[in-house]
């Protein structure tokens, strides 16, 4: 007899879950801002959960902040920002793209945050005539494929690599050892740097994602006698690498790109990262335009990390479009194409391929001091 109770109970529980789930959906789809004809709905997609979420959340927060400020200033023109969590997986991002493209209420897209998911979804948004503004997809060839609806408010890998090369030459580097993590981002930027540095590169190595022990790489660096080491990749591998390098007595200066512009880098290296240089196409908080940094800090309780300002700018492009009375996908796409305005991260004006003007990209070098990332100097791109 007891079994029957159990069964009845579990059926009831299941039914309750189903009802709850159904309830969720009803409460979600209620608000429609179509009637006012001045607000609108935009989608933002990226890895908001999972291992790499730390890199993407600041951008999401930046976009949320922009929308919130807009809605507070113009309560009659409510703009909705709908999040789509792809976990950074292109196979999850493409059905999302079909979903967003098929839903006529979406007028613009912020994303993708990684190059892979951007590459995978570009054709879908292009076919739907939806504009994509990416805050952080930096792979060079994304804008070289003849796509007409993809824009990015961030400089591509080539720009940053050029700045790093200029910096290294300015430091009078003689022997540069370059390491990358084989990822699209790390390997891309490292290859660009290699081209720019030419014979200054003494040796190279490639490591793996999630690698923890770098004995072989450290020995190679040692025997190459390099005075500078460039690492193209992310925090996870960079922190143990720089720590093990220092522990083994290698004194070469450590330089990394914006993948390391993350408080977890100096903390993860626990003192090993002192003196490391991080380049980033992002302005120091006090140099950024307006009150963005302060607002962000107030809203989310932490400083805007990597791409926080870019996320804000990406959303701002669409908000300006709505304010200008644009209400169709085609109008908004045209508006984005001709956008020409000072943003928080940089001056935003797209060239015919969708890149921001390289001369407007500002790249700063930061130094790790006392486990803090502090602004060092602005880098020249030439």
């Amino acid at each position, binding site marked *: 007899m007891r079994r029957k109770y159990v069964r009845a109970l579990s059926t009831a529980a299941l039914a309750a879950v189903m009802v709850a789930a159904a309830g969720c959906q009803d409460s979600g789809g209620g608000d429609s801002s179509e009637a006012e004809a001045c607000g609108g709905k935009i989608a933002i997609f990226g890895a908001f959960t999972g*291992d790499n*979420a*730390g890199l993407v959340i600041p951008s999401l927060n930046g976009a949320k902040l922009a929308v919130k400020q807009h809605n507070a200033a113009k309560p009659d023109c409510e703009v909705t920002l709908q999040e789509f969590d792809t976990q950074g997986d292109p196979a999850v991002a493409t059905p999302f793209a079909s979903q967003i493209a098929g839903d006529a209420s979406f007028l613009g897209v912020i994303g993708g945050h990684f190059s892979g998911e951007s590459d995978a979804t570009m054709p879908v948004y292009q076919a739907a005539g939806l504009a994509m503004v990416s805050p952080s997809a930096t792979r060079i060839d994304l804008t070289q494929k003849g796509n007409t609806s993809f824009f990015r408010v961030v400089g591509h890998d080539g720009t940053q690599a050029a700045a790093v090369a200029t910096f290294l030459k300015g430091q009078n580097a003689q022997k540069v050892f370059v390491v990358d993590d*084989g990822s699209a981002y790390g390997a891309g930027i490292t290859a660009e740097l290699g081209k720019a540095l030419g014979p200054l590169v003494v040796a*190279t*190595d*490639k*490591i*793996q994602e*999630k*690698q*923890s*022990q*770098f*004995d*072989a*790489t450290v*020995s*190679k660096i040692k*025997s190459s006698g390099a005075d500078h080491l460039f690492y193209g990749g992310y*925090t*996870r591998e960079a*922190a*143990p690498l720089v*720590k*093990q390098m220092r*522990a*083994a*007595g290698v004194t070469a200066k450590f330089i990394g790109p914006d993948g390391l512009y993350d*408080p*977890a880098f100096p*903390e*993860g*290296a*626990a*003192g*090993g990262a002192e003196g490391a240089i991080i380049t980033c196409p992002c302005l120091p908080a006090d140099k950024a335009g307006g009150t963005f940094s302060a607002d962000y800090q107030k809203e989310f309780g932490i400083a805007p990390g990597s791409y926080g300002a870019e996320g804000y700018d990406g959303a701002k492009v669409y908000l300006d479009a709505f304010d200008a009375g644009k209400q169709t996908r085609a109008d908004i796409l045209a508006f984005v194409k001709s956008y020409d305005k000072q943003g928080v991260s940089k001056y935003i004006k797209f060239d015919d391929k969708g890149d921001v003007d390289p001369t407007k990209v500002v790249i700063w070098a930061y130094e790790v001091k006392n486990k803090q990332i502090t602004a060092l100097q602005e880098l020249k791109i030439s």
Partner: protein
Amino acid sequence: MNFDELFGHFGQHTVDGLSKGAIYALIALGYTLVYGVLRLINFAHSEVFVVGTFAVLGAWTAFGMQDRPGAGQAILFLLIGLIAAAVASGGTALALERIAYRPLRRRNAPPLVFLITAIGLSLVLVEILGLLLPRLVGGVFPTLFGRERQIVGMPTIIEQKPLITIGDTSITNVQAIVFFSALLMMAMLDWFINRTRYGRGVRAVAQNPETAALMGVNQDRVIMLIFVLGGVMAGAAALLWSVRFGFTQSSLGFVLGLKAFTAAVLGGIGNLRGALLGGLFLGLVEVYAATLYTSAWEDVVAFVVLIVVLMFRPTGLLGESLGRARA
């Protein structure tokens, strides 16, 4: 193919390989211990190890350890770390056994079911360390759980210094500590299994559980002992990891566990000496491969070597034992 580099600094690369392999061997001991008795791949063992690394950091933070303490303090902190890690890892391993494995064993579930359960358990552990604890107590323990899923650094307890230098090959103090600890731990385990009363019970259960039960060996207690022992080993490995590398992360376990398990299989799973040999062999292979090509290829070479070794010696380099061959 960078032969110049490999043979130009062959000694150094060998030292590197052995020190890398010692870490694998330390973790492999836990896999092999459980497998030897239960014929069960405790897939969650790598997470038991990760729990240990967090415990080490937690203990060090709680007792206020600074970078590079003096020799006396360092020894004290090593002891504190060892105790914390052993308790945390041993406790986790025991909990896994009681919550998941024992009910399965009662039903005599096939090995595949154990494997999937273990995978589920390791997922849960990774998420507890990487997500739940940071959300729940991130504010209370900022050094441990301040950032979700991120890498966490630890203070340096022993500064690396070259201990012996021959030509351009140098062995650092930390490398030596890790290597000899691995040897010592294997020797102690070996002694425990082969020379003590408890060890006899373990061997009996490994050989034939039913007969052992008839002879009055309490199987459940032996199995609990095995899990606790494996957990304590993981704790010790976690301490040595913290001394040598000084960082941890919730998702550290997967890759490391995969390698350690490979090492155990290479040496002959279930065989303690095999775990050590397999670990060192794997470390050497990886470092040589990384030197010849790049580190990006080392896993490919390691797995190809594994396949080739198993083709010629289907039960690993030393074969399976633990009780079987040396009863």
